[in-house]
């Protein structure tokens, strides 16, 4: 009984001694996907897609990075707090990129000199 008194309220409900072992075949499947996508992105860059090239390249990179984060870095199997922290970081990075680029993309609209 006494030990329950000291248990913190934020302690996860699942038993602590449960270890998550990600099956090795998951690692090999992710690895195969990453290698294939590397050569796909190299090949597709040689095709003229106009302004779409960079979006295709970035989409493939984001997908590859997601595979690494979710499976190699175990975030898929992580605690909700870990997922929230990762999400916060990505949100912060998105703020940096999109707020600055919103300025860069739209400066020409008003004909402001000196861009």
């Amino acid at each position, binding site marked *: 009984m*006494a030990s329950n008194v000291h*248990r*913190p309220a934020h*302690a*996860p409900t699942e038993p*602590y*001694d449960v*270890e998550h*072992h*990600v099956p*090795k075949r998951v*690692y*090999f499947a992710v*690895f195969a996907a*990453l*290698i294939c996508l*590397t*050569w796909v*992105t*190299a090949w597709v*860059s*040689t*095709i*003229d897609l*106009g302004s779409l*090239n*960079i979006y295709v*390249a*970035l989409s*493939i*990179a984001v997908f*590859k*990075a997601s595979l*690494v*984060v979710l*499976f*190699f*870095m175990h975030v898929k199997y*992580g*605690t909700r*707090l*870990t997922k929230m*922290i*990762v999400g*916060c*970081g*990505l949100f*912060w*990075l998105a703020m*940096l*990129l999109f707020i*600055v*680029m919103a300025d*860069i*993309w739209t400066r020409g609209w008003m004909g402001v000199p000196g*861009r």
Partner: protein
Amino acid sequence: MDSETAVVEQKPHHHPGYGETRHHFENAAQQKDASTIGMWVFLLTELMFFGGMFMAYFVYRQWYPIAFASASNKTNLWLGAFNTTVLICSSLTMALGVHAASMGKKKLLILFLFLTLVLGGAFLGVKGYEYHDKWVHHEVPGAHFDCEDCKDAAHAPLFFSLYFGMTGLHASHMIIGFGILLVLIWQAYKGKFTSKWYTPIEMFGLYWHFVDIVWIFLFPLLYLIDRSGRGLH
């Protein structure tokens, strides 16, 4: 009564040894959760560190698309793709190393850490060759920069500055990782890690995969701009 007895039995200034659960944690799993969160917070500071350089890259690429496309075609597509493959292989061996550690397989852990070290070294070797190639061809920004067939040559140094800045910051992370790997291999050899406690292996795995992710973005952004040559004619 039980708790009082425990206090008496414990040494008055007992400091937990390597890998033992510290007194301020409920148990080993909570300690590991704290390590994981701490490592992720560190990686987010790294994300913003690299993020600033990516930000600069996107701004200048938006302003000088011809210079960036032309200068990007100076990089070696095959070496870039090969190095990306090498780095992804090293991420696989790292993930398998963490897996071996969690199973308590010491020899397998050392093998996978060693393979990760070798692949990381191979990546740095190829990177060094590429840097040398750039140096020989006067593509390093500065007094000796000379890119005669670059389009918009006045702004070509911007691309190469970002190329060396971003790949250099990435390579410095690889070199630091290389050093940490040597320590981890030594510790694994000494039997510091068990299936119950291998937190440094797992945390280093997070770092190594993060560095891999940075390269996953650097490869298309630096090597693959306008490879069809559309904007260069």
